[in-house]
């Protein structure tokens, strides 16, 4: 059964130095507040996992929390580069960043395999690309019925997955809707999970397109209204596209970035 706990306590309890941590969200419902709490608690040596590492990963990487990144697309969606991610890869600042790079199809299937209790997934993918030579977690596999050769990728099994959702009930059942991305799979693939929510309600009345994660499949829920900002929570907020555009200038320069993080993350008690 999921415990409903404060965010800082949940991060302290569930996320440890050196852990493999997935923070998922596909443009929508990105767990920014939880990422900021990880930064405030100075977690380090993390293997960060995410299909679309964006601004919150730029911040985690720029603050030196990550040793390794497992991902498929690292950019500022609709804007351009992630400058802190680039600086880490191109110049090793603030520390070198090991990469395990996949495609979206591969990452999605790795989560599916993790959620399904299988050691690997099969897909049509990667063939002919230069990713195969760089990524050891891509291998051929032969169909035992047709002899056709396809591609296998290993399951993702994060120590912790963190997501943001619209709401939970008092028992800790979680409900999210809108673009639901790969969040269900990421939570089910993980050993532990933390869900930040906009609010706790008495009853999760059914919503079209909603995904429900039962309380017995979630470790902890923390109530963090606005916890996805500058991403959004459908029905609660809209994407702060201006912030994503502004991040480009903030993040280009190391000192500007650090000053912004000090003022907006480190020196605030908690988000919002």
């Amino acid at each position, binding site marked *: 059964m999921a415990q409903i706990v404060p965010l800082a306590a949940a991060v302290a309890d569930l996320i440890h130095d050196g852990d493999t941590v997935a923070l998922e969200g596909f443009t929508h419902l990105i767990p920014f507040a939880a990422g900021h709490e990880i930064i405030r608690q100075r977690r380090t040596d993390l293997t960060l996992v995410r299909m*679309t590492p964006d601004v919150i990963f730029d911040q985690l990487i720029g603050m030196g929390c990550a040793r390794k990144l497992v991902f*498929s697309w690292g*950019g500022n*969606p609709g804007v351009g580069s992630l400058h802190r991610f680039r600086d880490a890869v191109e110049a090793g600042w603030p520390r070198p960043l090991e990469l395990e790079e996949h495609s979206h199809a591969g990452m999605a299937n790795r989560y599916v395999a993790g959620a399904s209790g299988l050691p690997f997934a099969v897909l049509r993918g990667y*063939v002919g690309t230069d990713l195969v030579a760089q990524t050891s977690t891509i291998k051929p596999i032969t169909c035992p019925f047709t002899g056709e050769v396809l591609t296998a990728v290993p399951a993702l099994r994060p120590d912790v997955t963190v997501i943001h959702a619209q709401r939970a009930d008092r028992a800790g059942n979680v409900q999210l809707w809108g673009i639901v991305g790969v969040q269900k799979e990421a939570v089910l693939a993980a050993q532990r999970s933390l869900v930040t929510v906009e609010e706790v309600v008495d009853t999760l009345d059914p919503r079209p*397109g909603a995904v429900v994660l039962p309380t017995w499949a979630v470790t902890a829920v923390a109530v963090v209204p606005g916890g996805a900002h500058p991403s959004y929570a459908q029905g609660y907020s809209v994407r702060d*596209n201006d912030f994503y555009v502004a991040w480009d200038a903030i993040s280009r320069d190391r000192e500007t970035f650090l000053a912004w993080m000090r003022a907006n993350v480190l020196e605030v008690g908690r988000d919002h």
Partner: protein
Amino acid sequence: MTTSDPQWTPDEMMSVAASRALRDGAVCFVGIGLPSTAANLARHTHAPNLVLIYESGTLGSKPGVLPLSIGDGVLADTADAVISVPEVFNYWLQPGRIDVGFLGAAQIDRFANINTTVIGGDYRRPKVRLPGAGGAPEIAASCREVMVVVRQNPRTFVARVDFITSVGFGSGPGDRERLGLRGAGPRTVITDLGILQPDPRTCELTLTHVHPGIDIDTVRANTGWDLAVAPEVAVTEPPTPEELAVLRRLEATKGGNR
């Protein structure tokens, strides 16, 4: 880098040309940026029944505004169905249900291979680290055909991409079949200067159209290899006033929320 008619910009000509290449009723897997602009322009002009699929899991999105990102709320709000990301790749893209995959590129080469991973240096310590693959490798592999929209210049149009993120025609004829890629690959590359298509025999990108006001030498000068040119190079029809009006109205909404 190019002359342009005062009535429209090269980017506008590119978006209009790309939108025209989409037939009404086609099912189109849309990347963000230029592809999304062109696909939505098509939907608001000659192709009202174009089906847009975004990799965030929205099937049949009908946004009234241009999304900034691939996961803007408007894409879910206006979709026929919102599905999970694993489902969009496994049930919809992988089996070859998508007519047109619509991609951008940081580099594209003679055989229409696409690079969105790294430029220069070594993979582990590149000169420029790009965002990476995203959905592109499997879009390029599995859609019935692929369209690429990209601004043309010698840094982007290179003889050989630094990194093959998404396979076009590999190193030439027969490579797609050899690799087991089931879609037909990039049939059309639309730039701000003209349109390139693979030669059916050599698979090499060949200039087939120039946009109004662009000459063939300008396209050659903006291509990093000895560009093949079709025996007859057509001149693209200029944007109509309606196309321009719709495009500009859409662009003005970009990233606006809903």
